[in-house]
Structures are given as C-alpha cells and as structure tokens.
C-alpha cells in the first residue's frame, strides 16, 4: 500500500519540484538578461537557429492546417447555410487559436529539443564549467540569448504560419469549393479586428515563445551529464512544453477574450 502510494505520488512530486526549479532558473536568467544583451552576435545566431531554420516546417504545416480547416468549416457552415462566413471563421480560428498553439507545439519539437540537446551536451562535456573558468557567465552567454531568441522568433513564426494558413484556406475554399472570392475577403475584412484578433494572437505567441525556450534551456541546463540524461531531458522538454502551452493557452484566452 505504501509502495503504491509512493509510486503514484513520486512522479507528481518530481513534477512539482521541476516547476519550482524552473521558476528559480527563470529568476536567475532574468538577472543575467541585461548582461546577455552584451552578446548580440550570439543572439542573432540563435534567432537564425530557432527561427529561420524552423521556417520551412512552419510554412508547410500552416498551409495544410489552413487547407483542412477550410474543408472542415465549409462542411459545418454548409449545414447552416452560412458558407459566406468561411473566410471570417478561418481567419479567426487561425489568428486567435490555431496559429499560436500549433506553431508553439512545432517550435517545441523543432527548436526546443535542439536547444535542450545542445545545452545538455555543453553541460556533459564541461563546456559550461570551462566558460565559468574564463569568467564568462554561461547564464548570460548561453541561456539568455536562447531565451530571447525564442521570444523574438515565435511571433514572427506565428505571423508566417497564419499567412500560409490563410493562403491554404483560400486555396481550398475559393479555388476548390467555389466560394466567391469577394465574399471570402469582404466578410473576413469586416469581421476581423487588428487589436482583438491579430494582436491577441501575437501576445500568445510571445508568451509561448518565452515558455518553450525557458523550459528547453532549463532542461538542458539541469540534465544529468550522461547520454541517457540528455535523452531524457530532451523528451521532457517536449512533454512539459506541450502541456504547459495548452494549459497557458486556456488561461491566456480567458484573460484576453
């Protein structure tokens, strides 16, 4: 009985400890952030690494999400005879919800894992200790640029995702299902607002970018210096980020409504 209880609660306790340590790590990184800005070249390299290199997967995913969204919503709207609202519904679903969330999930898989593995191997091969020896703070040189790069790259990736999604939705809706082009656009432009929809989604993107890169850097930083440790940390990055993204999404949506 006691054993069962331990087996049930230990993972929960571990999770709680992980959240707490991530919080402390976040504070430490915030303090190091101003010094991190003294390495702009490193920041630039990280934006390339997490942002520009994720562009292709984001664009292809956006296109297909938009296309399937168009098909599904056309089916649903045709039940109510409201297919003229297709453009509006596609744009609102993408801007407010799917764009930020799907991009963040892909970002965690594509960039978050890479950050964790890289930082974890730096730790395992004592590169971080070597930096400290040379009086270079790894928090400022390794952690901060990666964190900032995530915050900068995510909103841009979300914008590209939304644009590709809209293009895919337009392709299916107008060219294939035969919705009138003018109806599609005029209905969308009269119902989508900049501040309530586009900017709303970009706030989410900022928050998710910070969250995913924080989790990724922390997991890499705290990974045990073995090959198994780095492998587990990489897995945890994806799992924790995904759960955190979806939970935070609910909270943010409730606040930003």
């Amino acid at each position, binding site marked *: 009985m006691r054993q069962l209880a331990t087996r049930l609660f230990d993972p929960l306790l571990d999770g709680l400890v992980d959240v707490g340590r991530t919080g402390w790590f976040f504070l430490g990184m915030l303090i190091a952030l101003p010094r991190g800005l003294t390495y702009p070249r490193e920041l630039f390299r990280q934006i*390339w690494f997490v942002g520009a290199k994720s562009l292709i997967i984001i664009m292809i995913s956006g296109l297909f999400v938009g296309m399937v969204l168009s098909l599904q919503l056309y089916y649903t709207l045709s039940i109510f005879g409201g297919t003229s609202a297709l453009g509006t519904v596609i744009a609102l679903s993408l801007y407010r919800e799917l764009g930020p969330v799907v991009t963040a999930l892909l970002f965690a898989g594509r960039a978050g894992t890479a950050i964790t593995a890289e930082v974890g191997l730096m730790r395992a091969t004592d590169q971080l200790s070597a930096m400290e020896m040379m009086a270079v703070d790894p928090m400022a040189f390794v952690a901060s640029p990666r964190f900032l790069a995530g915050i900068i790259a995510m909103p841009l990736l979300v914008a*590209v995702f*939304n*644009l590709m999604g*809209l293009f895919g939705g337009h392709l299916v809706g107008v060219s294939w299902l035969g919705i009138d082009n003018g109806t599609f656009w005029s209905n969308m432009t009269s119902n989508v607002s900049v501040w309530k929809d*586009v*900017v709303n989604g970009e706030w989410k993107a900022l928050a998710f970018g910070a969250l995913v890169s924080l989790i990724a850097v922390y997991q890499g930083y705290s990974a045990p210096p073995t090959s198994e440790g780095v492998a587990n940390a990489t897995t945890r990055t994806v799992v924790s980020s995904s759960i955190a993204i979806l939970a935070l999404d609910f909270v943010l949506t409730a606040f930003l409504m």
Partner: protein
Amino acid sequence: MNPRRSYAAGTGLFILLGFAALAYLATQTTSLVNFQSGPTYDVTAEFTNIGGLKDRAPVKLAGVRIGTVEGVKLDEKSMDAKVTMAISDRYNEIPEDSYAKIMTSGLLGDQFISISPGGSPRNLKNGSMLENTQSALQLEDLIGKFLTGSGGSRTKSSGTGSGAP
C-alpha cells in the same frame, strides 16, 4: 560568403519576412482595410430601429462603397437611433432627398446602409440629414406578423408589440 555572413543574412531575411507577414495580416485581412483614406463629410440619418448595425459598417450607393458608419446614438427627443455616416469627398453629388435603408448582406451577413439617390437638384453636404429612411428588417417581427396573420393591417411601427394578436 563566409558562414557567419550567410547566417546573418538568413536571420535578417527571416525577421523581414516575419514582419512583412505580420504587416500583411494586420492591414489587408482585418477591418483596417475598410478605413477611409482621404477627406470625408458627415451626414446623419434617423432610423426607428437599426437592428444589428455596427460602427464602421459600410455605406453603399448602388452597391459601391462610398463611406462608413461613424457612430450610432439614441436621439433623446424623438427616441430614434441617430446614425452618423462619413462619406468620401469624392462622392459629393448625392441628391439631398436620397433615401437611406438598412440592409443585410445575405441571410446571416452584416448590416450596412444602402443609399438610393433621389431627384433633388441640391446635394448633400457636411452636416445635412437624410429625411427618408427605412429601418432594419426584423426577422422576429416578420415571423410574428406571419404567425398572427396581422401583417399590413396593423400599425406600421417596427417597435415591439406589432405581433400581438
């Protein structure tokens, strides 16, 4: 090109692309498209019921967009809705006795103001008021009239109670 320069160029390109996409989304796919550019003049009209007419709804003449709804207020004296429209200066030869009607685009679409030109030689100018108006069609009223069979014989007011038996 050495590797450092090539990733710097790639990063720059990525940032530019991201901002371009964001700018396109913000300006071309939202209600910003409907913003009037250039000078406008204000015209008001009173309706007994505006239905679901919202700010920034289009004002159309013969189906062509000539302006936007700037504001909706309740006129305390007449208890009518007072709608202010901003009409583009380019369209300054609309007869004074034109007819303003609230219409719906499609069954579930948005509402807009449709203007049918009258025959007066004098034109609308800043501050003038459209006297001839027709309120929004209320689906509920129509259904009520249909159910009670009282269509046409009762009062023309589009307020509540017109469907009472």
